[in-house]
């Protein structure tokens, strides 16, 4: 059996690529090393009766076009938007967030009247940047060094987008793409806690602090998604993040695609300079007319392809591709809901993201620890309790708490993480929560602590980087993953890339998988089926 495409990795991008290829009539097979599908978008039962979203934990970036093209609601995918959010302050107060802009504005006014005024302007400006970037997410970046008609026309398209803006908007855009979020927020806000809350999305998954240039873009990367058309909104996938990949799998199988779990790829088979299949860890070979790797670019080319098959300059760029692990994760089974000193019981603010880092300075200091090769002494946590909204994940009255933590380096002072390091890291995070919710630790039934080491071992994300590569300009757009190879192709014929290492990057977005499928279909002159262009934001 020779498949039309063998896809390595049943993460969301691999599945999205497989779905589009299957719909276009290709015979596809997805191979997955774990016994389950999902990659970093999984729901796992690691404690009896509890379901954890143990890697990615919230959704917003997943392209609505893909969700509709692949009919994901049909097998039961539901997204539940946040209804709140909170940032606890050291003095016992908090900044409470709502679903509604005007309600947020009122809460901002409690901290600073000036900031409440600025919030309208800020929200409008960020939305404008979202509107600009969204169409780019679903297109293949051009190679600016090429004179091929397609690259030239794509460059012209980019130029048209840019010059379609007003002169002032162009300057704003360039500043926004190059600034630190700290400087950017200083132009709008004065209250430290409001600035800190807005800065959250600028550092998630990133080995940069909020004072590093380029973090305003990272904010945009997290703000350009939506939940049911509400741009910038985030929500939970009902049943955990695995619901997304389960729906993708169902959609794939409905169109005749296959998924093989349980054995990972040892080697990508290359014959006469062409990829012809893969060898699995059990020795099985799966043959295909092309191979599509959803693994990160380092793993794909440095671990599963023989060096002699690759040009030296490409190898050097791949080796120097930056995948800096910066985060860890705690998945916690709770006997009861925590009681935060600052909030009344069952406060709506618990129905969203919660944080204990009330200033940009604290975030930046946490980053300084990472730069020195340690996990943060006073870490930044993006904490939530999905079961406040989604009772399907735990027994009645119990709760699942997800804590995404920064910063955690891929190595501790150059040494591999030990179990003791991991436990100390976990304890630091639990202690921080306990400070704001006394008695919390007594309610803990089970904790899974994941450092970059565990993320790499289980999901295969090199260094535990959740984006399969840093989102800095040297690795974005036509530079992602490597200049000259931003079109999902690799130097090896018929070996393609479809993971988050490719444009437009990480997050549970699906766009890289969709774009890769589009390129493959274009390559074999097969019309895509059910593939929408980017929706415009009105």
């Amino acid at each position, binding site marked *: 059996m020779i498949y039309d495409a063998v896809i390595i990795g049943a993460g969301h991008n691999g599945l999205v690529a497989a779905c589009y290829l299957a719909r276009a009539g290709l015979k596809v097979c997805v191979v997955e090393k774990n016994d389950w599908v999902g990659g970093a978008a999984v729901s796992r039962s690691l404690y009896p009766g509890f379901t954890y979203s143990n890697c990615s934990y919230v959704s917003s970036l997943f392209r609505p076009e893909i969700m509709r093209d692949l009919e994901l609601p049909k097998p039961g995918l539901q997204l539940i938007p946040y209804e709140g959010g909170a940032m606890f302050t050291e003095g016992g107060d908090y900044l409470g967030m709502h679903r509604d802009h005007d309600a947020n504005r009122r809460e901002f006014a409690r901290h600073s009247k000036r900031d409440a005024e600025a919030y309208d302007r800020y929200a409008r400006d960020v939305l404008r940047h979202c509107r600009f970037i969204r169409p780019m997410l679903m297109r293949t970046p051009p190679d*600016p*060094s090429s004179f091929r008609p397609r690259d030239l026309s794509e460059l012209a398209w980019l130029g048209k987008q840019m*010059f379609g803006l007003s*002169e*002032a908007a*162009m*300057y*704003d855009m*360039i*500043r926004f793409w*190059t*600034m630190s979020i700290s*400087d950017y927020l*200083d*132009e709008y806000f004065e209250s430290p806690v409001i600035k800190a809350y807005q800065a959250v999305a600028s550092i998630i998954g990133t080995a*940069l602090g909020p*004072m*590093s*240039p*380029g973090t305003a873009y990272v904010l945009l990367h997290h703000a350009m998604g939506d939940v049911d058309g509400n741009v910038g909104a985030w929500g939970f996938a009902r049943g955990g993040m695995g619901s997304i990949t389960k729906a993708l799998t169902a959609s794939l199988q409905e169109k005749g695609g296959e998924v093989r779990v349980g054995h990972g790829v040892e080697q990508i088979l290359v014959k006469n300079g062409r990829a012809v299949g893969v060898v699995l860890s059990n020795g099985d070979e799966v043959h295909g007319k092309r191979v599509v790797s959803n693994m990160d670019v380092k793993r794909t080319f440095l671990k599963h392809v023989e060096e002699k098959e690759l040009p030296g*300059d490409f190898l050097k760029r791949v080796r*120097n591709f*930056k995948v800096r692990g910066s985060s860890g994760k705690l998945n916690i089974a709770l006997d009861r809901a925590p009681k935060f000193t600052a909030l009344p019981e069952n406060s709506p603010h618990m129905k969203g993201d919660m944080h204990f880092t009330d200033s940009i*300075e604290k975030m*930046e*200091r946490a980053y*300084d620890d990472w*730069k*020195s090769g340690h996990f943060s002494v006073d870490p930044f946590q993006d904490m939530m309790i999905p079961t406040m909204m989604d009772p399907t994940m735990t027994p009645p009255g119990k709760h699942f708490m997800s804590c995404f933590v920064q910063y955690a380096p891929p190595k501790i002072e150059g040494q591999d993480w030990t179990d003791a390091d991991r436990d100390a890291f976990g304890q630091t995070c639990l202690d921080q929560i306990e400070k704001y919710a006394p008695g919390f630790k007594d309610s803990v039934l089970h904790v899974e602590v994941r450092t970059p080491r565990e993320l790499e071992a289980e999901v295969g994300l090199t260094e535990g980087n959740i984006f399969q590569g840093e989102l*800095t*300009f*040297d690795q974005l757009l*036509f*530079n992602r993953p490597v*200049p*000259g190879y931003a079109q999902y192709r690799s130097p090896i014929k018929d070996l393609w890339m479809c993971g988050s290492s490719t444009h437009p990057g990480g997050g549970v977005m699906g766009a890289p998988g969709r774009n890769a499928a589009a390129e493959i279909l274009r390559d074999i002159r097969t019309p895509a089926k059910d593939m929408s262009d980017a929706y415009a934001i009105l």
Partner: protein
Amino acid sequence: MPSFDVILIGGGTNGLACAARLQKAGRRVLVLESQSAPGGGALGRSFVPGFRAPALAHIANQIDSRVLSGMDLDRHGLKLAASNLTSTALSPDGNHLVLQGAAGATLTGTISDADRAAWKALRQQLLSFAAVMAPFKQMTPPRLAKGTSNEYLRLAKLGLGVRALGKAEFREFLRMFLINAADVLNDELSDDRLKGLLGFDATLGSWLGPQSPNSLILLLNRLAGEAAGQKAALALPAGGMAAVAEAMAKSAVAAGVTIRSNAPVAQILIEADRATGVRLASGEELRTATVISAISPKTTFLSLIGPRHLDTGFTNRIRAQKSRGGAAKLHLALKSAPDFRGADLKSRLVIAPSLRAVENAYNPVKYNEVPRAPVMEITLPSAFEPGHAPDGQHLLSAIVQFAPHDPKAGHDAARAEMLANCMAQLETYAPGIGALVTHAELLMPYDIEAQYGMVGGNWHHGELAVEQMLFLRPVPGMAQYSTPIGGLWLASAGTHPGGGISGAAGWNAADRIIKEGRA
């Protein structure tokens, strides 16, 4: 009182360059300088009797070639005490690495062959990138709009120049121009001393660490400079940096420019949205059709003009212009020559032992704190020529990073702590130096602001950072040296291409004013 076509505020290097250029083009120019002598960042400073230090800048590597020849600075007395200054990456154990020739054309000291080869290739690449960027410094930044007076032909040529790097290098340029310096250095080199020195150079005068994105371009900007006709070289003017200021002032006066010192301007006079003159602190009013401000744009608009004459949005943009200074200036009077464990004192001595050390020196300023182990660039002018210190004694001039511009601890406490940390750092590299010090002076960024008028103590009159470069400098929408006020122009380092003892911004502004047919 004779009347003038142009009143120019601020007799720093950019002000003098702009004034001379305009005077030669037939305008009568009056320069108003608040200090007792023109020179700005190139002034000398007698911080203790018998010792004359370069007050701020102490190395010439950015003097614009048009200024040098157009003002005939050689003829007006500018000579060099050292033309191809070496840089020494100091090591606490005496195992120094010396970069000789422009931008370290050759390396002396123990260093691996692999690093020598890697540095040769990297240096070549960085210089080629710097070379395609350099011409941009000598022109008015374009506007991103149709139907403007952009120099389209010239821009197209410069753009083609970037593409002419070749396919592979063009791609590398697009990958690297917003990258952080540390990644590039770590990818290519392994020697900590070399990486530390280059990381230091990249962040010198900035408010970034070498791990901050957008930091490599600052190194390229530095390498785009020149001295004594040689790209990326460093030079020491004979008589110190003050000699540059003196030569520029002489040249300007010879061209016919009138310079009034001790004449601080209190207000720019505005009538019906046009600048009509200035009012001095003394109360004296001077009228003219054209006012050029060669001082900080923030001071110009927020103090000399005031929000009353400006749109609110514009005022906010100016207020948001970042001008955090992170560099302090250290002057030491020494009884005798210090010993940096055998390092040649006729070299630029750099204490920046690793990228980590530079990054660690940067971290505290983010929180307005003083670093424990500052990094620094040291010159000993007295090692090159007499006149800076009494015979047998020495003057040490150092730019020290990073210093907070608004310290939590208060000005005096922070200065004392910074000085102590500097001395401890120096003692590690030059044991016994503390005992040689007869007098020490540390100018913190806030001291520099108070004494020399640079907002935040930032020597670029506004941070030179990507989001404040080219057509975004000093603020977006006002990067062509003109302002929303009729008859008012900008010419300071706060405008493109930024500071350093250069004169480029002033020269560009004059070009623009002449081209627009104003004044």
